[in-house]
């Protein structure tokens, strides 16, 4: 399978982030074409393309747009979820740094298609230069008449507001994002009603991921069939695959859905020299881990799901044999405990206790029965939490116990971790003796 640069195609150009660079590469051709179409035609084209949400859930994008009730004369909103924070996920941030106009054009087309005249881009606050680039891109687009009043003489008006978050993973959950955008604590809302019916300011709202929206201009410009000619039967199109960890050349690889990790490793120079693959995440830390067994699993929504995980955000975090799976999972659990918003009991209390148990196993103080305790805790969170954060928190634990139960047991039986953490690092170092409380920062701050 060959790589298919679409979103990445302009990233190596001089001043790739500027509007002029984007226009020279054919940018805004999609918008010009869209403005001559009926909005319903655009929605249909996106449905036909098979584009599914690139933010992790994989819900068909056009269908999401189609859920909006008929216009009632009041406002309807597009909110772009640019709160990329899932551990391992690193595609939207480089996209917005290198080519923010790709996203802005997608915002303009989508807004026209769904009848929105004020769109929002909610970007996490921890990426200063990305926020600068987005603000500047919006300004350039206004000046060129791609945003603002009577866009390209079409009579269509659109304002775009770029909004910086302030550090909270949960705001990547679409209803928490909406609460945050309304100036509240970022806590998920009960669904239904779904945002399509009652979203931002209780008005019909579409919330889409950056990569999903950035994929729209080429679909409109080149046609649904063009997009669907890439990928598999049910997972169509191109996607950014983000390789990180113990690979020779980590980075962004834009390929048709359905490519395998083996193929991607071939392209990226393989596992770092002298080492072998131990475990990996197909779509971020919230997706159950895979092992060598899954090297040939096609990375599309169906195949990854059938193999027991989720395609998620195609965040392929690669860990070689030097990595202690207990340490990896324990740290992810710190993250979920830190980021649990506190709204529901199973997640708030459950992640807290998961963290305690994992810390003691990691420190060699685990007791017989701790693995059963962990699994029991997981069972009390999975499917019982208010939003998907709780489900995500248990994924690495249950999947790693399934694949590496012996390694957990060795920590308990041997009263310590059998791994040398410095062997996993990219540079030699002598681990320092941690003072009690040295770990307190991990997952102890914030809310």
């Amino acid at each position, binding site marked *: 399978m060959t790589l298919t640069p679409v979103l990445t195609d302009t990233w190596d150009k001089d001043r790739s982030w500027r509007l002029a660079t984007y226009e020279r590469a054919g940018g805004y051709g999609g918008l010009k074409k869209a403005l001559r179409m009926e909005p319903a035609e655009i929605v249909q084209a996106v449905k036909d393309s098979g584009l599914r949400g690139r933010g992790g859930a994989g819900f068909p994008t056009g269908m999401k747009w189609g859920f909006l009730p008929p216009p009632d004369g009041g406002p309807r909103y597009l909110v772009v979820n640019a709160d990329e924070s899932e551990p391992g996920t690193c595609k939207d941030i480089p996209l917005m740094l290198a080519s923010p106009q790709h996203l802005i054009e997608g915002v303009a087309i989508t807004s026209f298609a769904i009848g929105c005249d004020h769109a929002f881009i909610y970007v996490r606050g921890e990426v200063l230069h990305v926020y600068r680039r987005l603000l500047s891109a919006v300004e350039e687009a206004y000046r060129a008449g791609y945003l603002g009043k009577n866009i390209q003489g079409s009579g269509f008006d659109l304002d775009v507001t770029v909004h910086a978050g302030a550090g909270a993973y949960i705001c990547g959950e679409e209803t928490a994002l909406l609460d945050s955008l309304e100036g509240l604590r970022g806590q998920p809302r009960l669904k239904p009603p779904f945002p399509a019916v009652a979203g931002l300011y209780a008005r019909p709202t579409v919330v889409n991921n950056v990569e999903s929206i950035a994929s729209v201009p080429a679909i409109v410009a080149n046609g649904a069939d*063009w997009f669907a000619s890439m990928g598999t039967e049910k997972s169509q199109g191109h996607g950014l695959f983000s390789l990180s960890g113990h690979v020779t050349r980590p980075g962004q690889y834009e390929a048709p859905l359905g490519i395998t990790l083996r193929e991607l490793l071939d392209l990226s120079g393989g596992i770092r020299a002298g080492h072998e693959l131990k475990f990996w995440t197909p779509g971020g830390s919230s997706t159950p881990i895979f092992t060598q067994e899954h090297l040939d699993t096609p990375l599309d929504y169906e195949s990854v799901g059938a193999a027991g995980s989720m395609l998620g955000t195609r965040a392929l975090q690669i860990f070689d044999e030097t990595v202690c799976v207990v340490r990896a999972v324990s740290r992810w659990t710190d993250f979920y405990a830190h980021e649990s918003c506190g709204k529901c009991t199973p997640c708030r209390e459950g992640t807290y206790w998961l963290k305690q148990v994992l810390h003691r196993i990691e420190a060699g103080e685990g007791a017989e029965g701790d693995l059963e305790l962990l699994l029991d805790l997981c069972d009390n969170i999975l499917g019982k939490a208010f939003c998907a954060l709780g489900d995500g928190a248990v994924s690495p634990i249950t999947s790693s116990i399934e694949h590496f139960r012996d390694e957990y047991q060795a920590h308990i039986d041997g009263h310590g971790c059998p791994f040398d953490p410095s062997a996993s690092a990219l540079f030699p170092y002598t681990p320092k003796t941690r003072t009690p409380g040295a770990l307190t920062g991990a997952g102890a701050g914030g809310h």
Partner: protein
Amino acid sequence: MTAEPVEQPTTKTRYDAETLASLTTDATAIMARYPDPRSGLLPMLHLVQSVDGYVSRDGILFCAEMLGITAAEVSAVATFYTQYKRHPNGTYTVGVCTNTLCAVMGGDAIFDELSEHLGVGHDETTPDGAITLERVECNAACDYAPVVMVNWEFFDNQTPESATALADKLILGEDVVPTRGAASVCSFKQMSRVLAGFPDGRADEGVGAGAPTLAGLQIARERGWTAPEASAAGDADGAAGQTSPPVGTPGSSAERKPATASDASVGKDKKPGEDAK
């Protein structure tokens, strides 16, 4: 029930007149960006940090007065988000990613080294007020691990040595240059003003992408790989496709020919999903 509060003619904040006037002007501009002014609260808290260096008591009162909500309501929001600081922040926040991937690649070692070198722990500030050290969560730069953020600008592929050298420069007040970001790192207060939505005119500084961001594109260029031609789809005239292509159309994985050695040699006896338990 308590009595209706009496309208306060003056502010409860202790800002001097000039600061208050300037804050009011900026906050008014922020609120005007949104259909509902309350949406301006997050940027307004960034604005407060740009003046006070943290979310101060006065800053909370100011936001409450501007939005006509209670100080408790503002505090509830301010304490939810990790970027809002409850104590005066250093001129620079140095954040070491210690989420799993960066941690195992060396982030833990970097944090420990920095912590020892600076004599402070997580969320603590050096006595000179230069650096607030933090463990940070995944910052979407995993292909550049281990990552350090200084005032939320990217310092990619760090080592304990590069990170301590970076910290030393910050303490001496020297400019430091992010790997992917502006030409130099601005102060915490300046950063906070940008995050409140007031551009500093530096968007064109720095690179568009680092090498890992371009890794796949570079291979595609070398091998002459491109996305399918638009015309091949026969849908360039504006009539949006009415049908989805059947399985097995050119380009679908069902029809693809072996392209790499692994296609031909490994796993060909497996169907998708066969690895499922």
